[in-house]
């Protein structure tokens, strides 16, 4: 703690404990706790409380208040917990007899403020912070706190209930793992008292007739095993699991407990944890039976979780996959009356439940959405240890999509029911398109066979819902990527056919009255151009379509988002639109299109599309003059990026060997001089130094980066160790002024870029001087601090609290 803060703290504590003071902004108290947390985190010594007696005085005063406000009680509980997080401070607070009065029976637990959920939550958080050393546990057990925590698991407040559950997990883990000397693997009678209490509570709740108690315990166990994930194997977790496994099995068999989702989650967390050692056989049997007994909706998350595991036995994996594929299988079977046309081997599939779920209007979409989301997740996995029947999956997906848009109504009764349930179901449509996109990653021979069908069947159909269209575009562009790798010429025609179809759709969409559709169409076009620009067929199709003309028209779209996307999409035909883009940069009234133009310009420059250095120099100079006074900070930032690219290219072109070290500080070599002249002619320095004083910090930061880079080029490291002396010449005076101005805090200044105060930003000599004289690295450090680093400091926070309580009489609640 700094001296300034230590001096302010007593005043703050006194103000907080004063009931006459109006309430503080709740963020102040939270941030104050953050500060104490950071102070105690690495420092277990008792000094903090000893040197700052105002802290314990605050606690004492709050305890003495006859009718304290919930917010100050909450704060005090948390503060005490944080302070008691180390053994020495805990003992200190115990000597002062504060902890018992706060967390024990005579504390807020028994008073009216306990009704307030924030107080209960703070009590739990306080206890949680405290449980980081052994003496805390007996203290809690002896003050009856364990029963309070057990009760709070069922608190009406979600936050309190969840905090109680997390606390129990923390306490059990801490109490067992901190007692390393004892052999804990045998039986729980050896376990520490606190752990025994928790385990006993879990066991009793599991056998309780109250469904909510059972569910609470299952949740607790679930997070307990979930938290073991990744930690080293602890023998006690296995003992615990063996203790409860039978009970869990009985829940599955009896099906009387309505906590199946929690049960599935628990099994998954156990499967993930390192608990299983020697009990594997029986555990996997339990998992298998869960996959069989739970409904498809309940088993889905378990199945997908199992498939992600490395250590899952192959037969369990296959069964999990079966659970996920069953709805897709059912869809395919629903197409036909007879025949082995499903996706799964009939022997493993028991379609009755799934069929009935899909037949019902209310459950059909839910089941399919969930299944599709799981499949998307599986497809995104790099190492999936089971084979996915991609071809059939694709067929099933196509069927779902056709059901959704009403283009397929199969003769079978099940098929027609499902198709009725799915027609116009956008939720399912969206999920199916996501899977379709993900399926494109699974490269295989089958892809091309279905590609034509997929795209051509879907693009021309009119989608009333924008999001579906967007997903179609996403899926299509992912599939189109594979066009590039097509092997034989025989498929060239097919490619052209596909592309023609796509462009036809695109033309229509670019004229849509909804800006969302126009914008996404342009984004789709940009994505296509990016991946297929080198392909001849693509270029030909693009040029022969109306798409480019339409895109150019959209440069004048009323919606700025669309104009910006049109700028990005139209850079393929750069030569013809460069003037247009420059016009947009200087005249468009909104930021997005201007940002798009500057980033396209930078891209061209980077790709070397702007021609010779002289042309580039003029181009950059023009752009700089346009963006220098732009009202949008990102445009100015983009301008600096352009300058950076230009500088590095100019350096490469003009230095014969760009990597050779520069021999002396004030170099007389021609390339260096020429380079400086180029930069000065392009009016680079005025822009860069002016940007250092930009009111938006990121702009200043970037300008400083560029200047530091330039200095590194013109001055070798050794010369920079001694700061450059500014000569007493007309140019030198200007630079000295610049130096002083920047030192005074760049953000407060407006730097004249027109040569005011004798600085000539176009004079190579002056600029060489400036680069050497100004301490850019210090400026860099200053600019890299957060804009609110002063206001967010603890000292500032303490000052704010003091100022608030001191001046505002009635802190009327207000908001925006």
């Amino acid at each position, binding site marked *: 703690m700094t001296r300034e803060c230590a001096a302010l703290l007593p005043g703050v504590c006194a103000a907080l404990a004063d009931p006459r003071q109006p309430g503080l902004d*709740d*963020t102040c108290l939270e*941030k104050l706790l953050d500060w104490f947390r950071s102070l105690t985190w690495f420092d277990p010594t008792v000094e903090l409380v000893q040197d700052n007696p105002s802290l314990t005085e605050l606690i004492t005063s709050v305890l003495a208040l006859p009718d304290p406000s*919930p917010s100050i009680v909450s704060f005090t509980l948390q503060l005490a917990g944080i302070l008691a997080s180390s053994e020495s401070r805990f003992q200190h607070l115990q000597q002062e007899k504060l902890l018992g009065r706060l967390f024990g029976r005579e504390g807020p637990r028994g008073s009216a403020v306990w009704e*307030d*959920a924030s107080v209960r939550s703070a009590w739990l958080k306080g206890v949680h912070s405290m449980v980081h050393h052994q003496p805390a546990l007996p203290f809690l057990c002896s003050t009856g706190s364990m029963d309070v925590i057990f009760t709070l698991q069922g608190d*009406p*407040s*979600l*936050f*309190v209930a*969840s905090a109680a559950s997390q606390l129990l997990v923390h306490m059990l883990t801490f109490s067992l793992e901190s007692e390393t000397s004892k052999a804990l693997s045998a039986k729980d009678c050896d376990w520490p008292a606190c752990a025994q209490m928790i385990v006993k509570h879990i066991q009793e709740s599991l056998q309780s007739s109250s469904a909510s108690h059972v569910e609470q315990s299952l*949740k607790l166990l679930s997070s307990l095993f979930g938290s073991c994930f990744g930690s080293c194997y602890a023998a006690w977790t296995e003992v615990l699991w063996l203790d409860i496994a039978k009970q869990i099995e009985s829940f599955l068999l009896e099906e009387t407990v309505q906590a199946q*989702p929690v049960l599935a*989650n628990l099994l998954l967390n156990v499967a993930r944890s390192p608990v299983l050692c020697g009990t594997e056989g029986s555990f996997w049997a339990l998992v298998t039976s869960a996959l069989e007994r739970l409904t498809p909706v309940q088993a889905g*998350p378990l199945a997908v979780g199992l498939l992600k595991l490395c250590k899952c036995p192959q037969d369990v994996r296959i069964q999990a996959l079966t659970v996920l594929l069953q709805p897709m299988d059912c869809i395919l079977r629903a197409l036909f009356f007879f025949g082995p046309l499903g996706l799964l081997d009939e022997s493993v599939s028991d379609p009755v439940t799934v069929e009935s779920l899909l037949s019902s209007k209310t459950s059909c979409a839910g089941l399919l*959405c969930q299944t599709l*989301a799981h499949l998307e997740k599986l497809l995104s996995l790099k190492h999936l240890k089971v084979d996915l029947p991609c071809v059939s999956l694709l067929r099933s997906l196509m069927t779902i999509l056709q059901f959704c848009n009403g283009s397929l109504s199969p003769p079978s009764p099940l098929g027609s029911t499902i198709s009725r349930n799915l027609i116009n179901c956008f*939720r399912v449509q*969206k999920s199916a398109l996501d899977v379709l996109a993900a399926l494109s990653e699974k490269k295989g021979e089958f892809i091309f066979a279905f590609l034509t069908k997929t795209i051509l069947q879907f693009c021309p159909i009119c989608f009333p819902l*924008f*999001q579906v269209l967007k997903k179609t575009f996403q899926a299509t562009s992912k599939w189109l990527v594979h066009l590039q790798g097509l092997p034989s010429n025989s498929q060239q025609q097919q490619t052209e056919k596909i592309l023609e179809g796509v462009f036809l759709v695109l033309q229509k969409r670019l004229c849509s009255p909804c800006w969302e559709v126009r*914008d*996404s169409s342009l984004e789709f076009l940009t994505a296509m151009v990016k991946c297929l620009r080198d392909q001849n067929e693509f270029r030909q199709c693009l040029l022969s379509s109306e798409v480019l003309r339409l895109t150019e028209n959209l440069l004048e779209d009323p919606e*700025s*988002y669309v104009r910006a996307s049109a700028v990005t999409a139209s850079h393929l035909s750069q030569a013809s639109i460069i003037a247009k883009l420059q016009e947009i940069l200087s005249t468009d*009234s*909104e*930021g997005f299109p201007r940002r798009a133009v500057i980033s396209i310009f930078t891209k061209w420059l980077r790709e070397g599309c702007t021609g010779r250095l002289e042309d580039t120099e003029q181009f950059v100079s023009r752009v700089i003059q346009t963006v220098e006074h732009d009202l*949008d900070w*990102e445009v100015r930032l983009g301008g600096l990026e352009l300058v950076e690219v230009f500088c590095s290219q100019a350096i490469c072109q003009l230095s014969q060997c760009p990597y050779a070290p520069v021999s002396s500080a004030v170099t007389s070599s021609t390339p260096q001089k020429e380079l400086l002249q180029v930069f000065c002619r392009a009016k680079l320095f005025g822009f860069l130094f002016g940007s250092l004083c930009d*009111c*938006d*910090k*990121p702009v200043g930061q970037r300008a400083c980066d560029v200047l530091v880079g330039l200095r590194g080029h013109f001055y070798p490291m050794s010369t920079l160790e001694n700061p450059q002396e500014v000569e007493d010449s007309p140019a030198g005076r200007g630079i000295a002024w610049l130096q002083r101005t920047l030192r*005074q*805090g760049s953000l*407060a200044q*407006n730097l004249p870029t027109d040569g005011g105060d004798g600085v000539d930003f176009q004079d190579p000599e002056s600029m060489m001087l400036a680069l050497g004289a100004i301490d850019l690295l210090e400026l860099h450090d*200053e600019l*890299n*601090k*957060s*804009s*609110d*680093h*002063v*206001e*967010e400091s603890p000292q*500032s*926070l303490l*000052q*704010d609290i003091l*100022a608030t309580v001191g001046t*505002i009489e009635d802190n*009327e*609640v*207000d*908001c*925006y």
Partner: protein
Amino acid sequence: MPEIKVTPLGAGQDVGRSCILVSIAGKNVMLDCGMHMGYNDDRRFPDFSYITQNGRLTDFLDCVIISHFHLDHCGALPYFSEMVGYDGPIYMTHPTKAICPILLEDYRKITVDKKGETNFFTSQMIKDCMKKVVAVHLHQTVQVDEELEIKAYYAGHVLGAAMFQIKVGCESVVYTGDYNMTPDRHLGAAWVDKCRPDLLITESTYATTIRDSKRCRERDFLKKVHETVERGGKVLIPVFALGRAQELCILLETFWERMNLKAPIYFSTGLTEKANHYYKLFITWTNQKIRKTFVQRNMFEFKHIKAFDRAFADNPGPMVVFATPGMLHAGQSLQIFRKWAGNEKNMVIMPGYCVQGTVGHKILSGQRKLEMEGRQILEVKMQVEYMSFSAHADAKGIMQLIRQAEPRNVLLVHGEAKKMEFLRQKIEQEFHVSCFMPANGETTTILTNPCIPVDISLGLLKRETPVPDAKKPKLMHGSLLMKDNSFRLVSPEQALKELGLAEHQLRFTCRVHIQDPRKEHETGLRVYNHLKGILKDYSVQHLPDGSITVESILIQATAHSEDQGTKVLLVSWTYQDEELGSYLTSLLKKGLPQGTP
């Protein structure tokens, strides 16, 4: 019993960030998705992990509704839809959809300025999020799915602010968002029809306050600006790009016109143009006066207000500058503040609330020596004024809205616990309805008593004579058909026909033992004579096979297999003659009287 559940994740007993989960008739809706500007870490967003413990958000939530464009109501939306992964429908009004991205973009800039900011959305995310939004018109009933429908009502508060009615079947909830029951200079008053929702969720910012007219505050504002300008000072008004800025621009513009003032007024951000464009575009959302004068002159076309250039700040003489961001976080407004703070002739007016951790908060709490970057101390000599222009309903307004909507229950959000408690009691006393005020994370459950509409077939109605009066309750019998999500009461015959079912007769049977050593047919005859004697008004028949019928009731006499002296009477009757059947059974159980032939 059906129930409505409400769990605030934000705005439960606080005014931080609104995010309220409502569960109604199996549908889950999120009302608002706000951000807390007082935090730089994840605490600024609601903790969405509480929405569902199992499964995906998109599967769980049926829709998200945003009431208006203030960041404490929509600021977390791009985070929720693009980073947390919600992919379902989002609804807001047209102006909110247009204005929301401007404010989000404005705030994103502040976060970029702050180093160490993590987990914040990008421009592309804002755009992608906005594309997912479905814009709604006022009073338009939007069908989210087959059962869930929503409808927007005018809320006043800011341009495009709306209250939403959420309806599933006959159960409904109205969420007010922020609203204002008194019209102001550019917006009208909130209005909702007498929709008698099961629950009204209302904001309660000024739960215990009776606010003075906004006109007084506006007059005060103009006076202060005018005085400063007159004495040659400069006025800085830090604002967010949209909202309060336009409101104050109208004020100054008309005042300047009226007083023929010459001092320049500048607006510092390039976003103004777009903002003003939207205010012009959504003229129908403004108040009557603006709409009426619109043809002669659009209020949002400002003659006196010009774009600001950084160099103007150093110009001598008076001026008024609107600069972003609003709480003097960083950027242009802070830069101008630093330049002007040292001169006591100048003034800064904070037209809204400032969170801790901003220069705005510091100067409002009276701090006059500020540490700036590079350990420099800035002495604030300029005048500092705070003026609250926030337009919320006060206690009177809230009561007025409840009177207007006639809800069965009320739930208070977006306010301080103490003040809510006061209002809660007042509401319960005055309207005799239950009023709730859950804290964040607490679930309130409200039992509803839904009336289910049933159609009655014309055939069944016509059977009743006289035809029942629609206003009077009447008991009717028929078969209830539940088909295609609707209920119909029809005659049993029609029900059979529609469902393609055959009619089955349900008969009750009973065995009665009587002591009679005679032959069966003689016993039968004795029973017949006995009944004929008693049941004079009924048709009693003796059939050739020896059995007896009384109306639909059939009686047969058989011999007992083991005891010749006992005869068994099999009695069987239909559902329609149940009363007669049981009467006969009890009669026969008494046995046949002596001397019956």
